[in-house]
């Protein structure tokens, strides 16, 4: 009998999944594109009962940097997978999906013992919008988090079973299991997806795994031990993941929705747009490489756009009582420019507030931005925005000017840029390189090491036809040059050791960009001889 129930549930699941997939639309944080589903309808006359309820998790707000446990409130668990488990056999006999209010409903056989399991998982297949999101414990075999109720009898009449995931906070510490945490992480992704669906209802989201654990510390080492470095987005062999800190009294991010949304912003770039950022450490006070500034500024802005917030908050320390509170509405930095992530986030946040997210999404997903020769930064964004949202170009121009960034239209290479951030040699933004000869190109550690302003030099050259070319970059003894080549995307790179780097690369006809850095960040003026043969 139980096996029969399970088979019926599977059959109905397919139908309802299709219905919910076609039910996209809506927007904002209200759950656009997510419709609750009802699975497990029993055969007529089989003594069915309806089990319904609402699933919530205890949310700890972070209005200005620190978690405020005194303001904890229940929030719905939205879009999550519900499984009804037969207590005797442990078989899943019905499934459902919570709706935007956290509500679920299933039909079950009467008079059996069951438990309700809600997984930290959102999935939707079908031909419309699709997604596959899970929150897992990287220190427990990557298991998916789930809450489970005690076993109870279905009885013979309709029953209600509301479930709540507690935070585990006892007033001074986490004294019991932090059940709410993975659902808080999941809910931030729900909000991010909903925002995306509000402008692109048919979006097929690539699978995303989020890894959270109470053991996740800001330490370099083995993620299976919780040593994840910091909260971050990674992509390896096509698998996209976000690791989230969870160590009490050190750094927890499950309730820092800004932080999780920022990393989802990098997921967005990976899945739907383009991001040439070299990654690495960064701070608002830094003058950054153009690609890093745009990428991190986008992440900050996106957190505000997705969560309908005007600040970015991040708790840390004892009792999660310290933290950062960043105003997204203004850069607030001395010496703004295209190299400041704060300039970028304030521009994009204000642009969204004035023209909405659709023109921004249209730009970031446009061929002009994704396949342009210029690497990702505010300048090619501006050029692509002029094509994707012509009527709003003047709004963006005003914002750019306010941050001391060239507002010239159709200038993806920033030829008209005049702000050098007071770092010698960073302008022009792209220098011409000689094909068949030698070109001198210099980098500097004046603004810091790694991914800072001037750490990379950008050369531009044109090839009459596709072919293999040998690139050689030779520098002083203390230097260790590396390089990457772009032609609408990164087409190759060379990251060996030593003061000279050579590689034969296959390049397309037309414009190419060669980006060079000194891995050793050896001096304030490190110059290379660059040969393209």
């Amino acid at each position, binding site marked *: 009998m139980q096996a029969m129930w399970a088979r019926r549930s599977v059959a109905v699941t397919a139908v309802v999944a299709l219905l919910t997939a076609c039910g996209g639309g809506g927007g904002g944080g209200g759950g656009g594109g997510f419709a609750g589903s009802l699975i497990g309808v029993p055969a007529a006359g089989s003594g069915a009962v309806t089990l319904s309820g609402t699933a919530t998790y205890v949310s700890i707000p972070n209005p200005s940097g620190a978690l405020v446990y005194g303001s904890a409130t229940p929030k719905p668990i939205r879009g999550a997978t519900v499984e009804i488990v037969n207590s005797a056999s*442990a078989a*899943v006999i019905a499934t459902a999906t919570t709706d935007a209010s956290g509500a679920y409903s299933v039909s079950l056989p009467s008079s059996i013992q069951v438990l309700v399991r809600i997984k930290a998982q959102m999935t939707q297949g079908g031909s419309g919008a699709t997604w596959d999101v899970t929150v897992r*414990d990287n*220190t*427990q*075999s*990557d*298991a*998916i*988090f*789930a*809450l*489970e*109720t*005690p076993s109870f009898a279905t009885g013979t009449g309709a029953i209600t079973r509301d479930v709540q995931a507690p935070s585990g906070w006892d007033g001074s510490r986490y004294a019991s*299991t932090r059940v709410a945490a993975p659902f808080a992480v999941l809910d931030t992704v729900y909000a991010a997806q909903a925002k995306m669906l509000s402008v692109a209802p048919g979006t097929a989201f690539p699978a995303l795994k989020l890894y959270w654990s109470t*053991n996740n*510390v*800001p*330490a*370099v*080492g*083995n993620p*299976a*031990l*919780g*040593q994840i*470095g*910091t909260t*971050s*987005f*990674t992509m390896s062999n096509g698998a996209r993941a976000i690791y989230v800190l969870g*160590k009490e009294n*050190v750094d927890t991010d499950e309730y820092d929705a800004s932080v999780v949304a*920022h*990393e989802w912003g990098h997921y967005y770039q990976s899945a739907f747009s383009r*991001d040439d*950022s*070299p*990654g*690495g*450490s*960064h*701070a*608002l*006070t*830094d003058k950054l490489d153009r690609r890093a500034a745009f990428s*991190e500024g986008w992440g*900050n802005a996106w957190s505000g756009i997705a969560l309908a917030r005007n600040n970015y908050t*991040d708790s*840390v*320390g004892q009792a999660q009582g*310290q933290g*950062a*509170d*960043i105003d997204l509405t203004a850069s607030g930095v001395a010496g703004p420019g295209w190299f400041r992530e704060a300039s970028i986030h304030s521009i994009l946040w204000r642009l969204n507030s004035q023209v909405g997210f659709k023109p921004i999404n249209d730009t970031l997903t446009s061929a002009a931005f994704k396949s342009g020769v210029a690497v990702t930064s505010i300048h090619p964004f501006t050029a692509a925005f002029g094509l994707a949202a012509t009527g709003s170009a003047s709004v963006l121009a005003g914002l750019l000017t306010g941050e001391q960034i060239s507002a010239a239209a159709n200038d993806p290479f920033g030829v008209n840029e005049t702000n050098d951030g007071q770092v010698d040699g960073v302008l022009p933004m792209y220098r011409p390189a000689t094909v068949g000869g030698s070109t001198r190109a210099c980098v500097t550690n004046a603004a*810091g090491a790694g991914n800072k302003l001037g750490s990379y030099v950008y050369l531009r050259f044109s090839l009459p036809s596709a072919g293999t070319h040998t690139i050689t970059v030779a520098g002083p003894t203390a230097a260790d040059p590396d390089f990457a080549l772009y032609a609408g995307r990164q087409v190759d*790179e060379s*990251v060996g*050791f030593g003061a000279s780097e050579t590689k034969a690369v296959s390049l397309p006809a037309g414009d190419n960009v060669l980006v060079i850095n000194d891995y050793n960040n050896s001096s304030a003026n490190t110059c290379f001889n660059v040969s393209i043969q």
Partner: protein
Amino acid sequence: MLQRQHPVRIAAALACALALALPLAAGAAGPAGKAMTTAPMKSNGSGVQVQYRVDGTPEAGRPVPVVLGFDGIAAAGATVRLATEGGLTLTSAETTRSLPAGQATTWTVEVMPAAAGIGYLNVFTTQGGATSATSIPVSVGKPSATMPASGALKQSTDGEKILPMQVK
């Protein structure tokens, strides 16, 4: 933070990470010449760059020096606070220090593990109203590659592991 590293560099970075995470074998090279590890910086944190080095082989009941390096200090200066966990104690009396503007600072402290396992020296840096945390692992003995498995783990029919958490 976006994590992206070149393949060749990853090999080097992993080597550094392993050198840090794994205890030095008896008779292995001492602190001389050992490189500092650069801690990852969180997006929108203090902006203070933290480097560190555990000088020697941590042993239970014996202090081991940890060299801390700080850079990226702006005009207003910054502060650092230390705390320990996981059976690790800080033998130095000083747990906070001001970091002067515009210069790199080095601070060597001693920590003592109580027993085999992994303890952490937590380093909190504050600058411009923002605080960042870095955890420095100090391992005694050969660390396990995984955490002890929860007895609650279940496996679904599709092979996925589930970690159930009981609610009322």
